[in-house]
Structure formats: structure tokens, C-alpha cells
């Protein structure tokens, strides 16, 4: 396969970037999108050019490190991570636009790499449970109803890739934050910090400069892990509950 790539090139956070066109030949349809970018980079390195910088790690769809906007879609046309997107979903001769996540809270570091540390700070505000350290607890000590376990697991699937923010017209992190809040808030292990977690994580999210939610639904469509849109309503419910409790104290 042969593709015409238009890739966002930006030397660093300060300098302005632009789309640069490259012709990439010798692409196999079994390659992943990242392997296709590797092919481009090999060519660039051999010709003495600067390779395209992009984030990647596990390359098996579970770490959330990779993620670029392909033809306007976060992670491209398939509902998966960029590393699991195969070139068979493109046609020979296609022109493909590759851009970094776009959000005020995700500044571009270089080319397709953005700084997603805002997510880490949201997690740091409450995306944890306080447990005594030591040996693993007895598994049956804390029973969890099946429905709650399923709900928690559905939200635990979030890999924090940031596709929701990239797809959102408001650059909002509501789907990410709701996945993290719901995952822990429904479980007995997360109960002691149930109120502070949602209040602190939402407030950390606002402080990072993410936009508000207008229920456009783009986030849930882009999410490679299928975190559903009603997660946001579930977090709003938790936030209102925590606010009511705080007002009574």
C-alpha cells in the first residue's frame, strides 16, 4: 500500500506547528497504524530528517499511551486504540491526516506527543482507596454484589488515553473522571472516600482547565474501551449526593 500522510509537525511547545505531507510506500495491510508511522520514521531517519514523535508503549491496546487523531477521529476510524488499528482499514492511495489530541489541558510537547499529566493530577486528587498495607486481604471478607462488580469493572476498563478529551468539542474530561469516580465509588473498598473522591476529582478536573460537559456524546463514541455516556450522569449523581451531604455537615 501507498499512502499520503499529512502529519502535524511541531518542534516544541513554544514554536507553532503545521501539517507536513509525506508519501509512505511499502505499507502492509497487516501493519498497525503505529508500525506504519515506524515505517515513515525509518525513511525520515535514513534521509537525515527528524522522525515524527508519537507516544506508544504496550502496543496491545491496554496501556493508553498511544493516541492520535486520524482523519478527525480520535484513534481513527475503528473503535480501538491507535496501536490496534490496522492498515487494512485504509485504501491504497488514501490521504490520511494525523494530528495530536487537541485540548487546552493537553499542550503539545512535540509533533503528536501531548502532555497528559493533567489526568495524573485528577487521579491524585481522589482516584485511589486508602487501605492498610500488608498481605492480600481474604477475598470473601468484603462481598460485592454482582451488579456492582460489573459496573465497577466496566469503568475500570478506562486506560486514561485521553481520546474522550480529544473528541469532545469542549475539551472536557468528564468521561475520564466519571469512569474513575464510578469505578471506586460503587465498591465497598471505595466507600470511605466516596464523597471526597467525587468532589476533589471534579474540582481537580476544573482546575486543570478542561471544559464542561454539554452531553454531545462524542467522548463515548471515541472511547476505545466503551465507557458509556451514562457514566457522566452517574458521576453527576454522586457529585450532587456528596454536595448535599457536605451541606448538612
Amino acid at each position, binding site marked *: 500500500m501507498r499512502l499520503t500522510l499529512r502529519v502535524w509537525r511541531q518542534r516544541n511547545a513554544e514554536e507553532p506547528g503545521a501539517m507536513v505531507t509525506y508519501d509512505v510506500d511499502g505499507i502492509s495491510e497487516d501493519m498497525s497504524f503505529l508500525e506504519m508511522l515506524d515505517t515513515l520514521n525509518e525513511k525520515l531517519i535514513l534521509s537525515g530528517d527528524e522522525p515524527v514523535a508519537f507516544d506508544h508503549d504496550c502496543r496491545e491496546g491496554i496501556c493508553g499511551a498511544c493516541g492520535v487523531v486520524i482523519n478527525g477521529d480520535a484513534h481513527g476510524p475503528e473503535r480501538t486504540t491507535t496501536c490496534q488499528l490496522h492498515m487494512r482499514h485504509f485504501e491504497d492511495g488514501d490521504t490520511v491526516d494525523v*494530528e495530536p489530541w487537541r485540548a487546552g489541558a493537553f499542550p503539545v510537547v512535540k509533533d503528536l506527543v501531548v502532555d497528559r499529566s493533567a489526568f495524573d493530577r485528577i487521579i491524585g486528587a481522589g482516584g485511589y482507596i486508602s487501605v492498610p498495607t500488608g498481605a492480600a486481604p481474604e477475598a470473601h471478607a468484603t462481598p460485592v454484589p454482582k451488579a456492582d462488580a460489573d459496573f465497577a469493572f466496566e469503568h475500570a476498563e478506562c486506560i486514561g488515553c485521553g481520546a474522550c478529551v480529544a473528541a469532545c468539542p469542549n475539551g472536557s474530561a468528564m468521561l475520564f473522571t466519571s469512569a474513575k469516580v464510578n469505578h471506586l465509588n460503587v465498591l465497598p473498598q471505595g466507600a470511605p472516600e466516596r464523597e471526597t473522591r467525587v468532589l476533589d476529582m471534579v474540582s481537580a478536573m476544573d482546575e486543570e482547565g478542561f471544559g464542561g460537559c454539554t452531553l454531545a456524546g462524542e467522548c463515548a463514541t471515541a472511547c476505545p474501551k466503551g465507557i458509556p455516556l451514562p457514566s457522566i450522569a452517574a458521576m453527576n449523581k454522586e457529585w450532587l449526593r456528596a454536595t448535599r451531604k457536605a451541606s448538612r455537615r
Partner: protein
Amino acid sequence: MALATRTERQPSLTRSFWGSTVGKKTVMAVSGLIMLMYLVAHMLGNLKIFFGSGEFNAYAHWLRTMGEPLLHYEWALWAVRVMLLAAVVLHGVAAYQLSRRDIAARPSKYVHKRRRASYATRTMRWGGIILALFIVWHLLDLTTLTVNENAQPGRPYENVVATFSTWYGNVIYLVAMLAVGLHVRHGFWSAAQTLGVGNARRDRILKTVANGLALVLTAGFVSVPVAVMTGVVG
């Protein structure tokens, strides 16, 4: 299991509520639902125009004597007006502040453009501005009668007919009523999500109610100018 780690909460609850994006959306949801309830009552009241001048004008007069003799003349009406004004102001201010924030949160656009979200969702901001301007026009037209050339005080039936006998009166009204429908379609469902009522099981029913409300409100309001234009009401 460990004890909860209690961090110090901010002292002013109102401030942290209004300062949060979720809190502001809650204000928008509640004020929006108040306006929506008023719209349903307003639309049903408008339909009385099909029973003739006498009944419509008597109904309009009753709106002023509502609650008597417990309340004084127009007290109930003013109570509703004050509540609506508060709802409109809170809804508008929250929308403005959230929109500013949303636009700032996405400073650079994608080069590869693609249509995002549904038409009703994308038109919420412009639709809201159109509706705010329409409310001003509507009050000047049929409440204060400032812009209604052939208006006579105390004769709302005749004034409505006068408004819808002009082309611009009809155009402004029809555009605004389509905007109301689109705004309610996304707004009602969104309010449910913001207030935490929405979930996967209720999604279909909430969307159906939102679409139903949007359709019934638009059709009900639009029926009046259409009736005047076709001579059913005149």
C-alpha cells in the same frame, strides 16, 4: 478497611457549587426545567385562542386576578414573572460562563474537520441567544405593546391577530419556535443527565419524552400564527 482521609472542605458551599462546572450545569438544568414547565402552561393557555376572542381575553384577564382574594391584583402574575426572570438570568449567566470556559478548553481546532454531535446539540448556544432576543421582542410585542402598531391594551386576542398579520411577526415567531423545539430536545435530556437521573435503562424513555415535549411545544405554539395566517383565527 482504613478510615476516610478527610481533607478540609472549602467554607462557602454556594461558592464551590457555582464555581464547579457540574454545579453550574445543575443550575442550568433546574432553571431550564422551571422555564420548560412555564412553556407547557404558556402553550396550553395559547390554545384558548381557538375558542374565540371572549374566552381568550377572559383567560388573559384571569392571569392577573389569579389567587384573588387571597392575593392582590397581579401579585400571582408578578411572582411568576420574578421567578422566570431569575431562571432566565441564572440560565443565561451559567451558559455564558460555561461556554467561555468550553471555548478556552479547546484553543486550537483540528485541521481535519468533521461534524461533531447532533444538530440540536450544536445549536444550543446560538439557539439560546436567538431565544433570549426573541423573549425581549415578544415582551415588547405582546406585553408592553411597544412594537405592536395596532395594539389595544386589554385586548390580547386582537393583539395576537395584529402581530401575526405582519410578515415579520410571523417570521420572528416561527424561527423562535423552531429554536425552542431544538433547545428543548437536547436540553431536557441533558438536564436529566446533569441531575443524575439518566442511566442506560432510562435513556430511551428520557429521549422520547424530550422529543415529545419539543414536538408538542413547537406544534402548539406554531398552531396560533398558522391559524391567523389561514384565517381560522381572525
